[in-house]
C-alpha cells in the first residue's frame, strides 16, 4: 500500500488533476467540491466564460451522480452503505481546456436508453443542441428532481465538444457508466 502512494501522487500530477473524489455524495459535499473548484478556477483561468462553463459542467456532473445512481447490489449484504449516491469524479486541466470525468453505476436496463440519448446529443451541432434543449424544457417529462434529460444536453452545450462515454457491465443488474466531458477554451 505505502509504495503505491507515490505512484498515486505521480499519476495525479502527470494528469494535471485539480480535484478527484470517490465515494458517496451529499448536497453538502457537492457544495464543498464546487467551492474548491471555483477557488482553483479563479486562480488558474483568466477567461470568465471558460471559468463559468467548467463550473456549470462540474455542477451538472456532480448532481447527475447524486440523482442518478443505481443501487449497487451486493449479495453478502456487507456493502449496504453503497446504496448512497456513489461514484467517482475527476477534474483535470490540459493545454486546450479542462476535462471532467465521472463514473457511476446505472441499472443495466437503462443503458440502451442512455446510449440513444447520448448519441442523439453527439449528433447535433450547437444550434441543434439549443433547439433540443428548448424542446425538452417545454415538452419534456420532468422527474421529481426536476431534471428530465436536460442535464446531458446542457453539459454538451457548455462543453463545446462531443461527450465521450462508455458502459462496462458490472453485475447481472448494473453497469458502470463512464463519461468524459472536455471543456474547450
Amino acid at each position, binding site marked *: 500500500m505505502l509504495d503505491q502512494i507515490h505512484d498515486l501522487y505521480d499519476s495525479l500530477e502527470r494528469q494535471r488533476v485539480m480535484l478527484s473524489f470517490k465515494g458517496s455524495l451529499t448536497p453538502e459535499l457537492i457544495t464543498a467540491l*464546487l467551492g474548491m473548484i471555483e477557488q482553483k478556477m479563479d486562480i488558474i483561468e483568466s477567461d*470568465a466564460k471558460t471559468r463559468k462553463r467548467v463550473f*456549470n459542467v462540474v*455542477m*451538472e456532473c456532480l448532481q447527475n451522480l447524486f440523482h442518478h445512481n443505481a443501487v449497487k447490489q451486493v449479495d453478502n449484504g456487507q456493502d449496504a452503505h453503497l446504496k448512497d449516491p456513489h461514484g467517482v469524479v475527476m477534474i483535470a486541466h490540459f493545454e486546450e481546456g479542462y476535462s471532467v470525468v465521472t463514473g457511476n453505476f446505472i441499472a443495466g436496463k437503462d443503458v440502451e436508453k442512455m446510449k440513444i440519448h447520448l448519441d442523439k446529443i453527439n449528433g447535433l451541432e450547437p444550434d441543434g443542441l*439549443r433547439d433540443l434543449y428548448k424542446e425538452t424544457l417545454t415538452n419534456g417529462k420532468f422527474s*421529481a428532481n*426536476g431534471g*428530465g434529460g436536460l442535464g446531458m444536453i446542457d453539459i454538451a452545450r457548455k462543453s463545446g465538444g462531443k461527450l465521450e462515454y462508455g458502459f462496462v457491465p458490472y453485475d447481472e443488474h448494473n453497469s458502470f457508466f463512464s463519461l468524459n466531458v472536455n471543456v474547450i477554451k
Partner: protein
Amino acid sequence: MESLKLEGSPKTPHVNFDPESGLMELKGRSIPENSIEFYKPLIDWIDQYGRSPKAKSTLHMQLEYFNTSSSKSILDVFKKLEAIRAAGNEVIILWHYEADDEDMHEAGEDYAGIINVPFKMILIEEVDGQ
C-alpha cells in the same frame, strides 16, 4: 398579502417579492439539488399575487448560475407571470447578464422565445453572488 423574502445561499438565490410595488427579484445562484422544493413557495406566492396583481408587475432575474433542475422551475415561475399578463395586466421580465456571459444571454433568449411575456435583456458589470 405579505412580501416574500429569502436570504441567498451558496445554492439558492436571494428572493424579494413585494406585492405593494409589484416588484419581484431573484438574484444570485440557483443550483439546488431539489429545485422543486425551493421554488414551490415562490410559485405559490405568485399564484396568490396573481389574484389581485398590480397594474404593472416586474420580475428581475439576475442569476450568476442556474442548474438544469432549476430551469424547469424558472419556466414555471414565468408561466405564472404569463397567466397574469394574459388576464390583462402589464408584466415584464428583466433578464440581467454579464458582458462576458454569452451562455446566460442565450438562456434569456431561449426563455423569451418560449414565454409570452416581454423580456428585456439587461447588461450588467458583475453579478453579486449574495
